[in-house]
């Protein structure tokens, strides 16, 4: 749904073609479905098998298939601070993205509606960060926030920051980076709902002596709720699993590590595959519960 913004808003046709039964459907579906089963469903099964493996008693660093469910208990005991931190950071980033993104989407979808050219330019500006490397734009913030950077300079000359103290490697900088990087995912779906909002409804609110605040609360907000819902989901999911912003080379430090960092380290560095797999599945389960709650309220077809 967010990405209809890229394809241009679809106009509904008066009479949709009736859905037919045909063997062609199978021919069209099978290759893609087969691909999804081979590279999405079986990897998830691989993760389940891996997460239950036990260390090989004979060869150090190898694992054998087992039913070692204690892996889950062990990773939760060891990494619960990172798990809670991930949920907290992602929730904060989603909140800030909403606070910045909603007015922006309102501005593009409603305020700029009389100026179509400005409107399309503004939309291009929102997706512009997608076109510059994710890692480079995160590094740019790191350098802007660094001890030699402009922000630290201004803050310390105002006496707000002791000299030599870094802004990077803090909760602030990680949440800041997450917020920045996922704002377009918040703006686009909200914009998509606001752009089709009938302005006469706002006029009606005004005619009925509703203050701008009342009209906003009783008309605009309910009508853009679907966009807000998919926006928060599209921001929260990548933010909760992200490990670039929180990593030491970027905006984080050792005490800001998130669950993504732990999964990466266990898989690629420590080669503790069962722990990485168990953590991945815990993260996936957490996200799925969240998504299911959303789907229950709005339906899958709406999210797509």
């Amino acid at each position: 749904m967010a990405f209809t913004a890229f394809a241009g808003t679809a106009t509904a046709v008066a009479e949709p073609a009736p859905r037919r039964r045909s063997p062609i459907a199978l021919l069209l579906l099978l290759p893609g479905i087969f691909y999804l089963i081979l590279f999405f469903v079986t990897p998830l099964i691989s993760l389940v098998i891996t997460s239950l493996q036990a260390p090989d008693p004979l060869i150090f660093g190898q694992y054998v298939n087992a039913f070692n469910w204690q892996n889950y208990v062990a990773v939760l005991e060891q990494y619960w601070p990172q798990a809670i931190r991930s949920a907290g950071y992602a929730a904060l980033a989603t909140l800030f993205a909403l606070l910045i993104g909603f007015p922006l989407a309102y501005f593009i979808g409603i305020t700029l509606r009389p100026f179509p050219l400005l409107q399309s330019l503004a939309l291009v500006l929102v997706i512009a960060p997608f076109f510059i490397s994710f890692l480079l734009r995160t590094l740019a913030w790191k350098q802007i926030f660094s001890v030699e950077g402009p922000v630290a300079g201004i803050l310390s000359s105002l006496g707000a920051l002791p000299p030599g103290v870094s802004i990077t490697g803090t909760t602030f900088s990680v949440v800041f980076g997450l917020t920045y990087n996922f704002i377009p995912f918040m703006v686009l779906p909200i914009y998509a709902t606001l752009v089709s909002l009938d302005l006469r409804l706002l006029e009606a609110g005004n005619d009925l002596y509703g203050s701008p605040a009342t009209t906003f609360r009783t008309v605009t907000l309910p009508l853009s709720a679907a966009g807000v819902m998919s926006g928060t989901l599209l921001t929260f999911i990548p933010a909760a699993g992200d490990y670039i912003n929180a990593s030491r080379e970027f905006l984080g430090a050792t005490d800001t590590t998130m669950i993504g960092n732990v999964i990466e380290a266990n898989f690629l560095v420590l080669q503790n595959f069962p722990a990485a797999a168990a953590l991945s599945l815990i993260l996936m389960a957490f996200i799925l519960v969240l998504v299911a709650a959303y789907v229950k309220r709005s339906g899958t077809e709406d999210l797509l």
Partner: protein
Amino acid sequence: MKGFGKYAIWAYSIMAFVFLLIPIAYTVAFSFNDSRRTNIIWSGFTLENWLTVCEAQGVCEAFGNSLLIGVAATILATTLGTMIAIALVRYRFRFRNATTLLIFLPMATPEVVLGAGLAAQFLQAGVPKGIGTVILAHTLFCLSFVVVTVRSRVVSLNPALEEAGRDLYASPVQVFWRITFPMLLPGIVAAALLSFALSFDDFIITNFNRGADVTFPSYIYTAAARGIPAEANVIASAVFFLAIALVLIAQLSAAARRRQLAKAA
């Protein structure tokens, strides 16, 4: 009060746009930095980096790998995804809800889980990791986005046009290639561009499945510890300007077409 609200939203939005553009401006500016070893502190303007992009070790190879992976994954994902999108809108079949769920789930799965899952599978199957496994992984996560993008186009397609083709004795193949496909093309192109952009900039899934092969984002990640060469900024800036130019051309031509249609009506 009403006037104040208008000014406030303009001011707030302009500040938000500035905020969105700061790191882009920074990255582009530092592609012109006269840096010797590390590109952290500004030390003068130069065009040198733009003229000798490939001199920094490994930058151009990484860029080439990313292009190759992006093109291959885009072709695979766009083909498979367009077929699914047409089937979803046009045909009735069993397990329809299960199919929709299967397409939706990869988009709701955090990248780190997709990456680790594929890596675990390649490990168990004994497949050596490299550019090939990265292409397979990228095709997977682009596929769902293609289905969503093309589907909205199929929904908006007027079936009367295809009926007219059939009435004029066109074969089903002719109807598809002469009517359906050209009308779906804007959606397919948008989906392909989105796929390429997602693939080109992906780091997390790539990092789990690349083995020893280096892509542009993974080059930057490794280089981040010792300092990014300005040449990386040059490539990122060039890609940025190219993409913005493409989007602006598409927007302006769409606006021109709308104006023409309005005049004709």
